[in-house]
């Protein structure tokens, strides 16, 4: 059980969580039509900070607007928390999809200073946090993935407090990308509605401060979280809602469904996401539980969404309210969902929050007022490494044995693919980071198959957990090149998709039909101790028994490294919290 100590939302609707909640209660939204005076972007609807609001945020005097936004929200939340922020028992976890990418065009030569981990380190330093921060880059589910990571690290007694901040800024990079995918609605979005035709974008920062001990000031706790992959497609959700159904089922195992007041859905208002969520709700027998979606107020706030929407739902349930789904009028999905455009009363004290995202990831958490007993005993874990692969511009090694590869340097991953794998044509559509990770994973699995002599089919119990420092910088630069010149403005959807580093985890999951957890973390620098702590905390859960894990970084064609392993859970020693 992980306890909420404080929270904050900083959005175009207000500077505090309470301001934001009151605005939603009154049905307000800052979604409006935006036009691009340069004529590069089509008109779109979004919820963006005004110039005055940005002036206020940028008074934080941080190097990038993204960092200023996160710092503003975190500092506001810390006003209601009481602990020594410099303690080694405090960790900062940032959730973001693109961080400071809007500054990349002007700083390509010093891009490393804009890596998400570098931004997170500067945020941590400015706050006085002395431990290394972690950035969760897991596409749209990042916010919930960050909360889940915090819960695991706290449950493992590695830290006493976790500051979880989700933030993203909109700009040409993200807007043009979603336009190239034809995913945006030109008008305010309509979650789950018969007339829905796409999502809106939004920007915000939201902070949850979580702790190991109950807070007198705050009644809420996160009891359980789960992440599962569809193993279907990197951008299209599973039509059978495979991953979302599994993640929700995982957190409901020992819960009293009768006390669930509502399910706060992802509800992006895209054609297929909302359809998929309705299938999951129907399959799990949850159709009668009130549900809502909040993107009709804010748009999709990317890395902030999971944290922001969780905080709002806590405030709403505190107020005995299920907020209405703005933009919804008539159900336009196959599965029955108990939705309403109007605010509704509730007397219940817990809720589910779910998200789905590119890369096939799906996340769900259960949040409750602290009246329920902790239901998930913490189990210490350790793991063994069964196989290791190292790929760099100069070498390819499997379990310490050097492979004879016909080429070195940038062509090495593809040379390995052609020599040792060569049966997956989709390889050629992947970006450099995904190719490197895919090849490394294939070599690991070949070694495993030789070792065991049998094909062990992992379904839901194998995770794919990867770390790096440079996020998806190669694809970021490649995509940027397609939009930087107004005379040659050709945003490429196939390149844009790979500007999320977690896509490689989805590619591995799809290839091997892994429905377990997939996660991608960006660190300021390689830190094996921190990676080990995170992996142990993931394996301490009841469902993940093994993982393809490790370091996967592709900074450019002469600087790349895959140092990945298959790890297996070792003996388990149960202890309860």
């Amino acid at each position, binding site marked *: 059980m992980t306890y909420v100590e404080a929270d904050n939302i900083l959005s175009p609707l207000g500077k505090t969580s309470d301001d934001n909640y009151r605005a939603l209660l009154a049905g307000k939204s800052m979604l409006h039509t935006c036009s691009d005076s340069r004529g590069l972007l089509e008109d779109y609807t979004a919820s963006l900070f005004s110039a005055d609001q940005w002036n206020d945020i940028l008074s934080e005097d941080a190097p990038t607007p993204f960092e200023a936004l996160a710092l503003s929200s975190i500092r506001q939340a810390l006003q209601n928390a009481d602990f020594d922020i410099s303690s080694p028992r405090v960790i900062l976890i940032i959730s973001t999809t693109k961080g400071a990418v809007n500054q990349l065009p002007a700083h390509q030569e010093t891009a490393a200073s804009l890596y998400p981990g570098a931004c997170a380190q500067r945020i941590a330093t400015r706050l006085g946090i002395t431990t290394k921060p972690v950035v969760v880059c897991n596409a749209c589910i990042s916010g919930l993935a960050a909360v889940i990571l915090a819960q695991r690290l706290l449950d493992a007694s590695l830290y006493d407090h976790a500051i979880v901040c989700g933030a993203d800024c909109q700009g040409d990079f993200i807007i043009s990308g979603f336009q190239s995918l*034809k995913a945006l609605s*030109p008008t305010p979005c309509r979650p789950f*509605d*018969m*007339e*829905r*035709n796409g999502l809106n974008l939004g920007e915000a920062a939201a902070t949850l401060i979580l702790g190991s001990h109950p807070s007198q000031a705050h009644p809420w706790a996160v009891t359980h979280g789960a992440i599962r992959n569809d193993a279907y497609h990197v951008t*299209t959700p599973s*039509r059978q809602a495979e991953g979302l159904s599994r993640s929700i089922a995982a957190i409901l195992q020992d819960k009293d469904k009768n006390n669930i007041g509502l399910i706060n859905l992802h509800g992006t208002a895209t*054609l*297929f996401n909302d*359809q998929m969520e309705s299938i999951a709700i129907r399959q799990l027998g949850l159709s009668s539980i009130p549900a809502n979606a909040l993107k009709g107020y804010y748009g999709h706030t990317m890395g902030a969404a999971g944290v922001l929407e969780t905080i709002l739902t806590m405030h709403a349930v505190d107020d005995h309210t299920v907020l209405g789904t703005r933009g919804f009028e008539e159900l*336009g*999905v*196959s599965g029955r969902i108990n939705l309403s455009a109007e605010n509704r009363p509730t007397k219940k004290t817990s809720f589910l929050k779910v998200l789905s995202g590119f890369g096939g990831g799906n996340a769900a958490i259960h949040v409750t007022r602290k009246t329920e007993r902790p239901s998930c005993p913490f189990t210490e874990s350790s793991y063994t490494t069964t196989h290791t692969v190292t790929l760099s511009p100069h070498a390819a090694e499997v379990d310490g044995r050097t492979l004879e590869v016909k080429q070195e340097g940038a062509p090495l991953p593809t040379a390995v693919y052609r020599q040792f794998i060569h049966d997956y044509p989709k390889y050629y559509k992947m970006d450099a980071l995904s190719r490197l990770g895919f090849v490394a994973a294939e070599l690991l699995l070949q070694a495993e198959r030789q070792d065991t002599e049998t094909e062990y089919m992992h379904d839901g119990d194998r995770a794919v957990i990867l770390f790096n420092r440079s996020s998806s910088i190669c694809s970021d630069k490649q995509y940027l090149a397609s939009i930087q010149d107004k005379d040659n403005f050709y945003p490429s959807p196939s390149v844009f998709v790979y500007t999320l580093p977690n896509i490689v985890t989805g590619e591995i999951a799809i290839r091997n039909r892994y429905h377990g957890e997939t996660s991608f973390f960006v660190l300021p620098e390689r830190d094996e101790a921190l990676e080990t702590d995170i992996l142990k905390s993931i394996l301490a859960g009841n469902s993940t028994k093994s993982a393809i894990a490790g370091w996967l970084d592709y900074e450019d064609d002469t600087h790349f490294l895959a140092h990945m392993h298959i790890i297996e859970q070792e003996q388990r020693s149960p202890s309860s919290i």
Partner: protein
Amino acid sequence: MKERIIQLLSEALPLVDLDSDFLFGELDSLGITTILMTVSDEFGINLTYTDVTPRNFKSVDSLVALIEKKQQSAQ
């Protein structure tokens, strides 16, 4: 028109249940694209992704209504 649409889509999307109460739920992105292209070619209209809503793809009857609306707009 309805019979012609059923004939065309039965050939193009043989695994889709065109009699479904909620046709949209039977389709994936490829199915929708196939319908857009097939119907546009057959009836001389220009259906694009902006015309794709669950309502417009709810049933074959909905598709007929969409086509007729597009034809009237073009006149």
